[in-house]
Structures are given as C-alpha cells and as structure tokens.
C-alpha cells in the first residue's frame, strides 16, 4: 500500500477563506522584519533629533514598560495563563534593588539587578506552583490577590520599605560599574562626545538612563522574541490552545507552564529593578493593581502573543500617560488617578463595543481560541484575518 498523498474525492471545498499558504505559517513563526529593524535604530538615534530631555525621560520610561509588557506577554499571551497581578514581580524587583541600595550600598548595581531577578524568579515559582491548576478567572483572582498581599507586606515592614512614601535615593544607573560606562559610551556615540560633555550632570543622567534602558530592553525583547517565535514558543502556544492535546503530544505541561511563569517573573523583576535604578526611587505604585491593569491595557492595544505588539503599545500608552495627558489639561496634573481611570474607561468601552480588528486579537490570543464571538461562521472569518 503506498503512502503518498491521497486525494479525497469527498473532501468539501475550503470554507469561507481559502488557505493563504506559506505566508500564514511565516507570520506565526516570524515577526514583521520592518519593525524589527527599524524600531531599534529609531530609538537609538532619537536623542539626536529630540532635544526635549523631559520627553526623552518619558521615552526611557516607555522603554522600561516595553519590558514590563514583553515579560507579561511571554506568560499570558503565550501560555494563556493570564496574569492579573504582574506588578507583583515588577515591584519585587524594584524593592529588592532599593532595599539593597539602602542597606547594602556596597553592592554593585549589577549585582543588585541580579538579586532582583533571583527574588522575582523565586516569587514566580512560589506563585506558579499553586497556580498550575488554576484556570482563567481563578488565576486572575489569585494573581490579583498576591499583588495585593505584597502591598500589605510593604506596609507591615513600613520602617524598612518606607510604606506609602517608598524608598528614595536609590543608586542610579549612572553609578553602575557596567551600566554607567555603557550608557555614557552610547550617549557620546549618538550625541557626540563634546555635546555630551557639555551637559549638566542631570541631563547626562537622563541620556545615560535612556541608553541603558534601551540596551537592556533590546536584549530582553530580543531574547523573548527568539524564544517566542522559536520551538519553545510554539509549544507554549500549544498549551494555550489545548492543554490536554498538548499533553497527548508529549508536552511536559508543568515544566513549560512553570518555566513561563518563572521567566516572566525574572524578566519583570529585572525591569522593575532597572526602573528603580533609573528613577532613583521606588514606591507602592510599582506593586499596585493600577500597574497590573496598565500592562494589560498596553497588551490589549498592542496585541498580545507577539511580544513586539505590546512593545509598541507601551510607548504609546506611556507617552500618553506621562507626557501628553499632563500637558492637555491641569486636571490630569492635579489628579493623576484620573489618567488610569480614563484608560480604564476607554478599555471598558472598547471591550463592550469591540470594534473589529482592535480588541479581538487580544481576546483571541488570551483565550486561546478563534473569534470571541460564539457563532461558527464568525470564528472562521476571524481566524482567517486576525493574525497580528
């Protein structure tokens, strides 16, 4: 009996859209190359064209948020274990760095970051294990609760953590053994050594922060993308699509799910720690629910399950929140809580109305299935065109 391809005369014509061939497969396994090359260059040379140091400072914050979003995505967008308390990992990293800076100033910046990664990863393991058997809503509640519990923990040790006021005077990236020189070198490269040398120390610190965060972000996002678009990323996705089927395919579920949790936590911890070193302070906002929601919003508008999508979303949202909204009306300046409130409201509206092409990709990715709509016809159509 031959085993060549057998034509099946009874096979029905392909429903709705014809298979689009190799391009579909490619898009799954490789991101848009244009963005991939253009974005880093754009970001690298931005300071050459933009003089506004306040704006650059916020772009640097955006860069850190790219890391927050990317680390969230490798877990929630890929394995479908949607984390509603990502701030827990971020804040853990940030506070680790801050506490080390406060109590053990002899510890180098780089070592502090390593510690941040380790502690955050440990937390990821601690939470990941009980959460293995949790599905959607329960996982959401659990992760939300953990972040809240960490806020309480911060209050309990108020004297060490500074409670509501947080910790100030964290050693900044400029003081770093590696980060300082790297940041400076890049600043001189882009701005020119004379221009950089002529700047005030504060402005120099802004440029150094800008480039250090950029370098770390490119490395992290690059690594996560290599993972996400590679073999392991495919396995992670399969877990999101159907855990039982993945097991039947021989996938060691626990190892992958837990691994994603720990990786996500470690990356978030690193980003959080770096953020502390860029801002020079840490406070409770890094553990708050608001931050967790903001990251979800970023992923929602950027497109979860692609790493690069949330990255773009991060810049847009952060620049909006920290720069442009402040300049629009005094209301936002005096009452910063209105900003997240406005975003929340927008998100709600978008989720209810669900304009085609905007939110469905996110929900599709997060719930691991085709269209959010129940009708089979829509499912066919949506999955035909909804790849990011």
């Amino acid at each position, binding site marked *: *009996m031959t*085993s*060549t*391809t*057998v034509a*099946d*005369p*009874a*096979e*029905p014509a*392909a*429903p*709705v*859209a014809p*298979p*689009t*061939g*190799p391009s*579909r*497969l490619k898009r*799954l396994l490789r991101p848009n190359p244009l963005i991939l090359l253009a974005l880093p260059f754009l970001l690298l040379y931005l300071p050459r064209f933009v003089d506004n140091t306040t704006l650059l400072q916020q772009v640097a914050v955006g860069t850190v948020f790219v890391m927050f979003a990317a680390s969230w995505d490798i877990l929630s967008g890929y394995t479908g274990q949607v984390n509603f308390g990502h701030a827990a990992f971020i804040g853990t990293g940030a506070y680790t760095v801050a506490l080390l800076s406060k109590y053990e100033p002899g510890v180098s910046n780089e070592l502090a970051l390593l510690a941040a990664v380790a502690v955050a990863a440990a937390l990821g393991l601690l939470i990941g294990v009980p959460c293995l058997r949790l599905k959607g809503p329960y996982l959401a509640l659990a992760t939300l609760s953990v972040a809240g519990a960490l806020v309480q923990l911060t209050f309990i040790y108020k004297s060490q953590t500074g409670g509501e006021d947080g910790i100030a005077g964290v050693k900044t990236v400029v003081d770093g053994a590696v980060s300082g020189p790297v940041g400076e070198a890049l600043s001189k490269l882009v701005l020119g050594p004379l221009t950089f040398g002529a700047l005030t120390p504060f402005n120099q610190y802004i440029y150094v922060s800008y480039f250090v965060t950029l370098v770390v972000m490119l490395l992290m996002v690059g690594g996560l993308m290599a993972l996400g678009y590679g*073999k*392991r990323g*495919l*396995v992670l*996705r*399969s877990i999101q*699509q*159907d855990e*039982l*089927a*993945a*097991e*039947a*395919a*021989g*996938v*060691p*579920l*626990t190892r992958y799910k837990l691994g994603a949790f720990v990786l996500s936590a470690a990356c978030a911890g690193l980003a959080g720690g770096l953020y502390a070193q860029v801002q020079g302070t840490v406070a409770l906002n890094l553990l708050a629910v608001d931050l967790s929601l903001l990251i979800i919003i970023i992923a929602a508008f950027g497109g979860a399950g692609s790493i690069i999508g949330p990255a773009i979303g991060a810049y847009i949202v952060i620049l909006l929140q920290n720069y442009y909204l402040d300049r629009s009306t005094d209301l936002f300046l005096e009452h910063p809580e209105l900003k997240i409130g406005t975003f929340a409201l927008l998100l709600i509206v978008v989720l209810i109305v669900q304009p085609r092409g905007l939110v469905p990709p996110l929900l*599709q990715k997060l719930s*691991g*299935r*085709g269209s959010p709509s129940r009708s089979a016809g829509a*499912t*066919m159509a949506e*999955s*035909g065109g909804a790849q990011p």
Partner: protein
Amino acid sequence: MSALLEADAVTRRFGGLTAVNEVTFSVEQGAAVGLIGANGAGKTTLFNCLTGFDKPTSGDVRLRGKSLLKMARHKVVRAGVARTFQIVKPFPDLPVLANVMVPLIAGGTKGDLKAQAMAVLDRVGLAARAASPSSQLSEGDLKRLEMARALATKPVLLLLDEPFAGLSVSEIGVLSDTIRQLRQDGTTLIVVEHKIGSLLQLVDRVVAMDQGAVIADGEPQAVMRDPAVVTAYLGGGAHVDTQ
C-alpha cells in the same frame, strides 16, 4: 512471548459507580486489537487508564513489563503510548504543520523539524494542507491530523478513540488505508470503535466490554457471534452493522 501492553485487573471506580471492573488482557507487539462495547460499557474509561490520562483505582497497566501508573502523562507518551481523542482536539489557531511540529519538539527531535513534520503529514495524506489553520479543516482531515499528531510522537503503541465517528464512507475508507499502512509499518494498535464493519477490516482480535467487564476476547468473527456480546451490544438483533 512477552506482551507489549498488559492490563492487569484494572478497576476504576467513581464514588459508587464501577466503570471498569477487573479488566485483564494483554496485547502483543504488532497486533491490532479492536475494543467494542455499548455506550457506558467502560471503553473510554479503560482507554484513559491505558493511556495515562486517568489512574485506575486498583490494578496495573504495564508497557513491556514496566508499570505506567506512576508516570506523568507526557512520560507515558514518551514511553511510546500515543492516543487520539474521540472529539478531535487540534490546536485550532496553529497551522496544520505546526500541529505536528509540537509533538516533535516535545520529543526532543533533532534536525529539520519542518521536513520531518511534512513527512508525517505525508503518511496521513495531509501534506497539501500543511499551511492551513487547523480550524479550517474538514472533519475527516481533522481525524487525520489527530493521527498525524499521535504519529509524530513516534509511538510503539497507538490507541485510537472512535476514529471513524462522524466520517463519511469515503473518509472512512481513506482513514482505514492509513491505519492499515501504520500497522504494516510496525505500529501496534488498539482501536475503540462503534462502526463494527469498518473495524473488523482492520483488526485481528476483538475485546468486547459490557458494564465495565470484558465479556469476550478473541478472534473477531467468534466474538461477534458470542451470545453474550450479541445480547449486550447488538441488542439481540444479531446482525453486524456492515457500514
């Protein structure tokens, strides 16, 4: 001759209900065994116990003499026991090729994964649909994909759960050919099926179950004529569904 798979007094209780009752049989390497029984006879439960998707309340399941009971599900698959699902479970948003690549990756396969995945798709006749999202496949193709995915785990023992359910006559024909080819290539098969006629053309041994226990085990025609089987499964009407 040592058996490939042994079920040893496998019992599975759910609270007060005994779904599988002291089932014992063994399957030799290279055999093709059919498992039949009315709905509720315990086939699926037994199936799940044999494949590591459920743990028996008592008894043992051994592959080449080694108990499968303590193994994690993915380890059972790695040991060489693969299964398909009665209601197909593809990875809906992944292309067909990717569906088959996952088990290859999980199994630590080296080399050109895409090519190896294509080879598996070729075996089941799905190579032409490699780039389609699996959500766009017909039922028959989805069954073939189930099988492709199971094959990609390089099993020594393949358990098929009602592979012909929901398929047209021609689709059954195509699938049967593929299954027969698998057998020729050396895979041992256990097939749960309701479509007796189609099943009998694939297997050389039939195990019949009723209310959790094995009521007949042996040569297909003999089992089909066994009065206990006729009463329990065919409802006394005594004619084999030849579809």
